[in-house]
């Protein structure tokens, strides 16, 4: 399958009083057409490529944006890049309740997404055609003078259709309601409908179920899976929930401290995990079949991402049960035993480092620093 999105050496840095924080440090991956690609990691691992980042920082490439050649998203001017949103990629956010405008009806907001596409298609040459002179004056008269608003009736009808497709009952009536009249699960459905309005090739789902009840989570995941099957849509799923990953994804990238530590197909990572971090992550998941056993947590916290404190080494070494002297060098990504896609960023992978002496217990200082560097958590 062809690549739909290529992320090359993505770095997200922000600058605090304490210094530079490398939230995402040189991440590369590609998402193939029609697959569900999962990015998983614990809090603070840098997995959340929020849509803002995707627009601002990701060197994402689109095969058919310009004549089959890949386009450097980062190099595009903001207005052009925004034009790619909707038809090329759409985002479902973590918190549906705050992702909709409280003072516009749900139907209006979905219709906007349809309308912006309709206007762009009607006049593909001009980036500004989608605005069509909409500004302060249009906004002020829009509510009072009929026909002067932004939305077209056809767009509003399409919004109702989309609501129906995501399984909202009485879509025509619900379209007239405001976000506060919806439940959390309904809101997430509405947000998905809004993304579908642009008919995107790539759907970015950023923790789409975190804010929802467990039963509703399952419904939303089913909906995403159905949509993916029906439309052959590509999904980039960002989550900390291994259950969600296991249920949805074809391929996975596991993130730790701003880097991808292991990647591969679902079975590579879940059945033959190589990196001690992945093993730890899987070991901390409760198993319904084994009663009475204790969970195995990973000791400590995600390390400080302050540039000054990071250095060149395996960032997991201070929490790793298998740490040894060789871990003080920055490990490369190495091919692991699974499928062709399976790689891990760990010295244990594929090579025999049995000679390397184990790392001294207090190499990174005693007690507290084993729990991560205090005060540096961004």
């Amino acid at each position, binding site marked *: 399958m062809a690549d739909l999105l290529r992320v090359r050496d993505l770095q997200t840095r922000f600058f605090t009083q304490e210094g530079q924080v490398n939230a995402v440090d040189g991440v590369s991956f590609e998402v193939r057409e029609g697959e569900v690609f999962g990015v998983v990691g614990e809090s603070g691992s840098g997995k959340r490529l*929020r*849509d*803002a980042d995707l*627009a601002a920082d990701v060197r994402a490439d689109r095969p058919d944006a310009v004549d089959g050649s890949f386009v450097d998203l980062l190099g595009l001017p903001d*207005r052009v890049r*925004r*034009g*790619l*949103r*909707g*038809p090329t990629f*759409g*985002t479902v*956010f973590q*918190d549906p309740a*705050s*992702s*909709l*405008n*409280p*003072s*516009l*009806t749900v139907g209006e*907001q979905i219709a*906007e*997404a349809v309308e*912006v*596409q309709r206007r*762009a298609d009607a006049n593909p040459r001009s980036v*500004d055609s*989608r*605005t069509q002179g*909409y*500004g*302060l004056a*249009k*906004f002020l008269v*829009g509510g009072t003078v009929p026909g002067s608003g*932004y939305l077209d009736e056809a767009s509003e009808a399409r919004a109702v259709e989309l609501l129906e497709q995501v399984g909202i009952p009485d879509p025509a009536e619900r379209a007239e309601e*405001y976000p*506060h009249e919806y439940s959390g699960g309904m809101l997430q459905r509405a*947000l998905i409908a*809004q*993304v579908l*309005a*642009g008919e995107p090739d790539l759907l970015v789902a950023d923790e789409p179920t975190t804010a929802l009840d467990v039963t509703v989570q399952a419904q939303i995941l089913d909906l995403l899976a159905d949509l993916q099957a029906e439309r052959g849509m590509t999904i980039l799923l960002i989550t900390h929930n291994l259950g969600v990953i296991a249920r949805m994804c074809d391929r996975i990238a596991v993130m730790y401290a701003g880097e991808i530590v292991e990647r591969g197909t679902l079975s590579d990572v879940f059945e033959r995990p190589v990196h001690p971090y992945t093993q730890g992550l899987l070991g901390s998941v409760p198993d319904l079949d084994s009663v009475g056993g204790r969970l195995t947590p990973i000791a400590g916290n995600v390390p400080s991402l302050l540039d000054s404190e990071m250095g060149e080494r395996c960032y997991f070494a201070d929490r790793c049960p298998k740490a040894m002297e060789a871990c003080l060098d920055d490990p490369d990504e190495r091919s692991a035993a699974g499928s062709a896609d399976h790689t891990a960023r760990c010295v244990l992978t594929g090579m025999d480092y049995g000679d390397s002496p184990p790392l001294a217990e207090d190499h990174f200082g005693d007690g507290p620093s084993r729990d991560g560097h205090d005060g540096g958590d961004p």
Partner: protein
Amino acid sequence: MSLGRFLLRRGVHGVFVVWGVVTVVFLLRFISPGDPVNFIAPLDASPELRRRIAEELGLNRPMYVQYAEYLAGLVRGDMGFSYLRGQEASAIVFARLPATIELAVAASVVAVVIAIPLGVISATRRHQPADYGATLFSLVGISTPNFWLGIMLILVAAVQLNLFPTSQRPVGFLEIFGHLVAVELAGPSVAVPLDVRAFAGTLGTWLWHITLPALTLGTYFTALITRLTRSGMLDELGKPYVDAARAKGLPETLVRYRHALRNTLIPVITVLGLQLGTLIGGAVITEAVFAWPGLGTLLIGSINVRDWPLIQASLIVIGVSFVLLNIAVDALYASLDPRVDYE
């Protein structure tokens, strides 16, 4: 709750508030120094004459009798007679009311027209020269006292540059309407054309006279609304729904106006309505500076001569306007913000 029930409930509520206002205003007379008789009677009046004047005005009766009579009068719409002018107090006050409302509305219009675009520009170009300019303007605007600004405007714009008149209100807004109404009254059968010249002349004169007072009264207000719009916009632009709106490909103009400004305007309109009430009661100084014949000048004049029926009538009318505006703002708020119910 429906709008009708809401208005009814707030109306009943408002009656009690107005009653409280009336009572306080009535009691003011008994705790204020200066016997009105002194201002009416000649300086060499005999005690007998003074007694008769007091008796005629009803000032010698027990307080509760006066209070009951005053309330009974109010219910019938009778606010008493002005001591010195011998006219009904209500007639005098209502004759002055249009001038005050005009000024308050004009000041609000100035504020809205300048402040909302300025606030939006300021918020969307944060930490750029335009933002610093707007912030400086609002700081200066909020700190400048009305009377000083009024006098400066008169000195510079009226006296030095001779652009505007220094004072007075030769025509009212009602007279501008008068031109239109005259056409309407004549009916379609009689073709009375709108006297465009006279209409434009009246409008021009009105605008020419109201500009300086409206700027004076509106500056503080403009500064306030600019700040409110700026901080509101910044607040809204930082919310997740704005990111979501951008994520669906909406151009920035739509994100700004259709999304962020819509929510920013909810508190702005609330403050606007409440401030309009303050402007009606608080235009006293501006009216005095520009000799604007509104309630403010009337109130000051009446206080100077202890013309209690006029003082009371002015204060009650100001109080009632305040209550009505408050009810209107609450009703508007509920219709603007879908999350708010009429409660």
